[in-house]
């Protein structure tokens, strides 16, 4: 016993463990900061630790080569004892890490914690966020499936648009002109060595700053931060109501971290890992890649942007956002901290969250994307075929064969790119349909050259039946003599088409 004690004392003498404990775990924090609002930072750190441990375990099996990456993930999913669970933990750990990091950032913003004297704490946190998103993107590439391949392609295509250096950057990121074996090695190195190393370093700095500048006190409305007086005020708060972080203020962090851990383990158990979805084979045209949820909003934004503002928004958008976040602690350096006195800050948070969530929802459903298999896989509801004439039935065939269904839903099934056509006859008259089919317009391509006159007639005859039973069909409101423009009448008239219309 005595020997053990002597060893402990010797170690403490050499390593200054007691002093380290007193200055870190034992440092005094304002009692008011022992709040449920302050738990997200520690939860994010816990997620990172889980990611490091589960990632290291995965690296024992994962082979970062284009030939074997996909196979080694299949091995983890199906052969390795509970390997799928390990993948699940790593996947859900990353989801929770991004989610809690966002919650932490919002809390810090709303509590004014970025203000004097904690500007660098905010900045280091911002870089941690960027690193985490970098981990998320490179991690998605590790899955080396269709999502990974196309995600990478889109990333490279965005980089390639940068003027002057774009091509060189793509070459640098992909380790060559195309996505190949070296690309995977490069992203493996980033995901496993470089970015985690950076994160560990910046987390160290982040925590050091929290210790040096003290944790933000719970903001009180009316208490304004002034550069001249704040340090003395904070020292006074610590003197009056300071409590050691361990054990007084850490309890809620521990409880929340435990809940986080249980949640990650449960989600991994119940929902499991993601993918891998389909081999990364660019020749498979029926791939429908989607990014992980943290990039869904970006995916949707890029898909919905008009062409002319793409390049503009792609580079200025993120650059501007990052610049604003960097400038924030210096611009709003002093003043009110409490959210109840900063309505603009609250509105900004609501706006940002609503934008991201809405875009992510669009990214998930991606209504702009045609359903490429609808024309051959989604049957026409039988009720739309009951009692139809042979020509109308044939129009339904043309409807499927020309892949109208890929963009237009019937009976709630099919693409959402164009309007659903269940009641199209109540909106368009037959001549209007003919014009729309032949000339296109309103985001629809022209099908005039892809359809014979007979096919157009059949198609329009079918679509004229698409209306609720009790609702009359749409009628032309123009005067009768203008009802059919002559050329449309010619198209509709059952005259003999010449053979040249056929392929």
């Amino acid at each position, binding site marked *: 016993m005595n020997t053990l004690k002597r060893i402990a004392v010797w170690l403490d003498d050499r390593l200054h463990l007691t002093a380290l404990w007193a200055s870190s775990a034992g440092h005094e924090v304002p009692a008011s900061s022992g709040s449920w609002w302050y738990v997200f930072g520690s939860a994010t750190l816990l997620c990172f630790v889980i990611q490091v441990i589960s990632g290291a375990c995965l690296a024992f099996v994962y082979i970062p080569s284009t030939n074997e990456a996909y196979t080694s993930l299949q091995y983890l999913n199906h052969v390795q004892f509970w390997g799928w669970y390990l993948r699940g933990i790593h996947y859900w750990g990353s989801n929770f890490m991004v989610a809690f990091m966002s919650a932490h950032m919002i809390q810090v913003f709303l509590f004014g914690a970025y203000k004097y004297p904690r500007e660098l704490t905010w900045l280091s946190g911002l870089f941690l966020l960027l690193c985490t998103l970098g981990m998320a993107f490179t991690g998605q590439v590790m899955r080396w499936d269709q999502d990974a391949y196309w995600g990478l392609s889109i990333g490279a295509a965005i980089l390639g648009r940068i003027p002057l250096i774009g091509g060189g950057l793509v070459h640098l990121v992909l380790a060559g002109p195309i996505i190949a074996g070296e690309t995977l090695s490069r992203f493996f190195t980033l995901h496993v060595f470089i970015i985690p190393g950076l994160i560990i370093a910046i987390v160290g700095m982040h925590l050091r700053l929290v210790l040096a500048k003290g944790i933000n006190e719970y903001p009180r409305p009316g208490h304004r931060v002034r550069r001249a007086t704040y340090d003395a005020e904070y020292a006074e708060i610590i003197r009056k109501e300071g409590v050691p972080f361990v054990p007084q203020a850490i309890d809620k962090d521990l409880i929340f971290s435990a809940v986080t851990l249980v949640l990650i383990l449960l989600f991994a158990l119940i929902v499991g890992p993601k993918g891998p979805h389909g081999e990364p084979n660019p020749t498979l045209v029926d791939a429908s890649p989607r990014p992980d949820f943290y990039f869904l909003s970006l995916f949707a934004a890029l898909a919905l942007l008009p062409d002319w503002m793409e390049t503009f928004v792609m580079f200025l958008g993120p650059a501007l956002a990052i610049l604003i976040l960097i400038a924030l602690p210096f611009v709003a350096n002093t003043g009110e901290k409490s959210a109840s006195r900063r309505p603009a800050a609250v509105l900004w948070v609501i706006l940002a969250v609503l934008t991201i969530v809405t875009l992510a929802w669009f990214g998930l459903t991606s209504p702009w994307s045609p359903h490429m298999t609808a024309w051959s896989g989604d049957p026409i509801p039988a009720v739309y075929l009951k009692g*139809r004439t042979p020509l109308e039935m044939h129009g339904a065939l043309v409807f499927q064969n020309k892949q109208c269904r890929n963009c237009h839903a019937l009976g709630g099934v099919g693409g959402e790119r164009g309007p659903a056509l269940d009641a199209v006859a109540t909106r368009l008259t037959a001549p209007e349909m003919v014009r729309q089919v032949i000339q296109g317009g309103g985001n629809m391509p022209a099908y005039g050259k892809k359809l014979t006159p007979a096919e157009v007639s059949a198609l329009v005859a079918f679509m004229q039946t698409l209306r609720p039973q009790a609702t009359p069909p749409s009628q032309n409101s123009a005067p009768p003599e203008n009802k059919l423009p002559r050329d449309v009448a010619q198209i509709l008239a059952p005259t003999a088409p010449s053979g040249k219309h*056929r392929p």
Partner: protein
Amino acid sequence: MDVSARKRSFQPSRSWIVLTTGLLVLCAAACDPPGKPGPAEIAPENIVDFQTLYGQNCAACHGADGKNGPGRIINDPLYLAVLPRDTLRQIIQYGRPGTSMPAWDQREGGPLSPKQINALVNGIENNWAKPVHFATAFPSYTGQGTTGDSGRGQKLFLRDCFACHGPGARVGTVTGADYVSLVTDQMLRTSIIVGRPDLGMPDYRFLNLGHVLSDQDIADLVAFLSSKRPAGITAMYESAQNRINESQSGQQGGSTGQHVNESGSGQGGVLTKGNEGSGTGPGSPRQQKNEGNKSTGSSSLGGPK
């Protein structure tokens, strides 16, 4: 009082812990957690399950269960009895050029491999073909060798079809230029022979109120309808079919012949029009063909090895 009582009721907690832990361990050992990934995704080109293939590629036009779609009913014993197996394969492989039936063979620009087309042919035959007992012989599928008389066809049309397909009649006309431009003679012929049992159109046995339409009757009806088709379109259909026949004879010794042997329909590897007709010509009993299917049914179900 109440609270402490409830607390006390939890006192025998050791048995609770043992029970819960035991259940959890049992559950973990016995059942797969819902998060465990299912079987690995099959690459699209390796799918040979009939239901999946049919659902992904055919159901949109031919109906979810082979019927009630806008396209030809497939889930119909009579149709499958009349249709030679090789023609079924040929239609899937090459489609019906100029019509809404596209080619599905990879060599023709479609998505399906020969293995998958084989699975579709076998699946259709094994799931939907049933022995049909008829008093009389079938009409042949193509009607090769019978020349139709359009004038007689018109009379037959007025007698047998007019009630439903006359102008303003219940079902709707089939003599309009648009309709006959969209269908080939073969499609007309098949429609007359098999009808649309799912939609209420009777087959060739009942169109003439109890009198079976003869091969000649059907050919005459087709000739009449065909005469309504604008010039040029018939020639287009014929040239497209000729192109298929040529590319067929080019591949005759290759994989196509092999599949025919696998399927065991015993009709040889020649798929040209003329041979189809003679394969299941008038009078060839369906029972024979079905027995042939049955004997190879189990081996064809599993698909090619």
